[in-house]
């Protein structure tokens, strides 16, 4: 299966792959994103799902199958690729993967399933695109859902007690540029790296940096940023990290990723502070939209959740 899923990613990374081309056309309608934004998001998603990366994930996580269970994924609309990692993990654990597309973005899941059907019909049989029925929550063992806290709470209330629920709620990300990055050759690449994080989902994803903290003066080359993207992060300058912390402290628990530019050592020194703020991912600027399969979205391991007893499996992650 690892080989199949890796091969699947190779296909999706190939710009001539017909289903990718269909997706680029259809997703412009369901998301309002440009072809470039859609393609960037597809590339970011499947480049983390290569055979090698999946194999490493399986080995590190020591995946044990949870056969004979069905996992219903209630998909988000804002980040059309957000559910793919969860679906792949579901398949790797040999569970059946049911996908309920969102009201607003109903196209990517059926196209992905079609690509699996073409490559491995048997594996494709384990994926179902489902519509909502009154009984659906009692037909599965686990529900993985993305959405607002209101949506997740409503699902929890409707859930039979024997069904696990993994909920990915609202979160957001920020980026930080340390002064060292502005004093070296790194500076030349900063704008492009920031754009790589800002562009894919028009700043609507939980991994999109809503705020860019810059140590010292904000570089003048960031001025034209608003001409290159239709939405841009707020720019805040800081002198000491404690100012950033103070700014974010009230949001701890709602933070997802920190993208940084500057010395890794400075970030390492801040690790306890970042943990206290609740960041589940710290990565270089430009890599924010490429979470690895092992990323614990909302500090939650889907692998662990699928093994847990239903009553204990409750979490708030992000989408």
């Amino acid at each position, binding site marked *: 299966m690892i080989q199949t899923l890796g091969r699947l990613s190779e296909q999706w990374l190939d710009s001539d792959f017909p289903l990718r081309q269909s997706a680029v056309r259809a997703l412009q*309608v369901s998301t309002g994103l440009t072809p470039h934004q859609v393609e960037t998001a597809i590339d970011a998603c499947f480049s983390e799902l290569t055979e090698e990366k999946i194999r490493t994930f399986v080995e590190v996580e020591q995946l044990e199958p949870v056969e004979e269970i069905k996992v219903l994924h209630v998909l988000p609309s804002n980040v059309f690729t957000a559910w793919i990692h969860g679906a792949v993990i579901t398949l790797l654990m040999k569970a059946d993967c049911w996908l309920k597309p969102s009201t607003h973005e109903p196209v990517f899941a059926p196209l992905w399933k079609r690509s699996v059907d073409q490559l491995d019909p048997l594996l494709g049989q384990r994926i179902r695109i489902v519509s909502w029925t009154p009984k659906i929550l009692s037909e599965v063992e686990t529900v993985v859902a993305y959405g607002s806290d209101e949506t997740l709470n409503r699902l929890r209330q409707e859930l039979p007690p024997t069904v696990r629920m993994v909920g990915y709620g609202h979160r957001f990300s920020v980026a930080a540029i340390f002064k060292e990055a502005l004093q070296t050759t790194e500076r030349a690449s900063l704008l492009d790296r920031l754009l790589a994080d800002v562009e894919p989902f028009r700043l609507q994803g939980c991994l999109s940096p809503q705020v860019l903290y810059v140590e010292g003066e904000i570089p003048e080359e960031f001025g034209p940023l608003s001409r290159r993207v239709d939405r841009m992060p707020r720019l805040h300058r800081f002198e000491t990290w404690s100012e950033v912390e103070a700014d974010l402290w009230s949001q701890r628990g709602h933070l997802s990723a920190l993208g940084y530019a500057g010395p890794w050592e400075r970030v390492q020194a801040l690790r306890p502070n970042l943990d206290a703020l609740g960041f589940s991912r710290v990565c270089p600027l430009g890599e924010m939209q490429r979470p690895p399969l092992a990323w614990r979205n909302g500090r939650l391991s889907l692998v662990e959740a699928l093994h847990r007893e239903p009553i204990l499996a409750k979490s708030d992650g992000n989408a």
Partner: protein
Amino acid sequence: MEKLELKIERFLRTGQGSFDALALELFAYQFECNTPYRAFCEAQQRTPSEVKDWLEIPAVPIQAFKGGAPLTTFSCERAAAVFHSSSTTGQTPSQHYLKTLTFYETALKSGFSAWIAPSEKKWPFCLLVPSPGEAPHSSLTWMLDVVMRQFGGAGSGYFIQRGLLDDWRLSRMLARAQTDGHPVVLLGTTLAFLAFFEQCSKQNKTFRLPIGSRLMDTGGMKTQKRDISRTEFVEQVERFFGIPEDACLNEYGMCEMSSQFYACGTSSRMQGPPWVRTQVIDPVTGNAVGPGESGLLRHFDLANVDSVMAIQTEDVGEWRDQGFVLKGRATGAELKGCSLAAEAYFK
């Protein structure tokens, strides 16, 4: 066989036609000629041969009008008009390309004459919106300009210039109407009327407009200071203009649609024309909700001939007596994204 456009145009003019049959025929046409929409439908394997009921016609989210490929059955260089939505800072406006204004104007005039201008007489129209010269892509401005030219009498005009309400000129016009005994028709955004009422209140000024005067407002009731209820608004219309409740209409429309909905007086129940149907959709399940339950409005507008007829909005409403009650704009991340939470924190 009669051309689809002619059948729809007749429906818009007369209110007579088979919605179900025309909806399926229009879907087949849009599937055939609107390439991005076709891709959207094909991805879901919902093609004209699969779709047997108008309720199954795939509805595009509002986001589809905000970027990506234009949703048209024609080359957008040939567009007769492009309507843009108003948008707040940081939001991407919608763009709706119209191949011809025939359907838009026919639908508008039919609805407007039924709700706002039932009389044959032409009274002066006071428009509390910017003129087309100042807002060339505003669908609201365009709409009011069309009805002013069709139904308005001598002395009609715009009372917002360079973003400012010309309350002095408007006051003079209303005073003259009061003195002469000629009714006037006031059309504009709810916020513009509220701004005028505030001025009137400061100056301790009220008008008793002649019987036959009417008012139509559109847009939200949310001001920067506070939200006001429909009942409060209608009371203010009565107090400052002397226009009774049954001559006070509320309009709901969007630049992505070619038809409008209206509600009368303090009633919040919006009603559309016979060529438009609306569903209320549960955002989680995607299924239609029952009476009394809230959900997202999904409109099927036959007047959207050369774009897409089925539109999934982000407006929350509740189905009521063959109409719907508008309850606001959805804020949940199931629609927009988790970044919304951040906006609340950092505003």
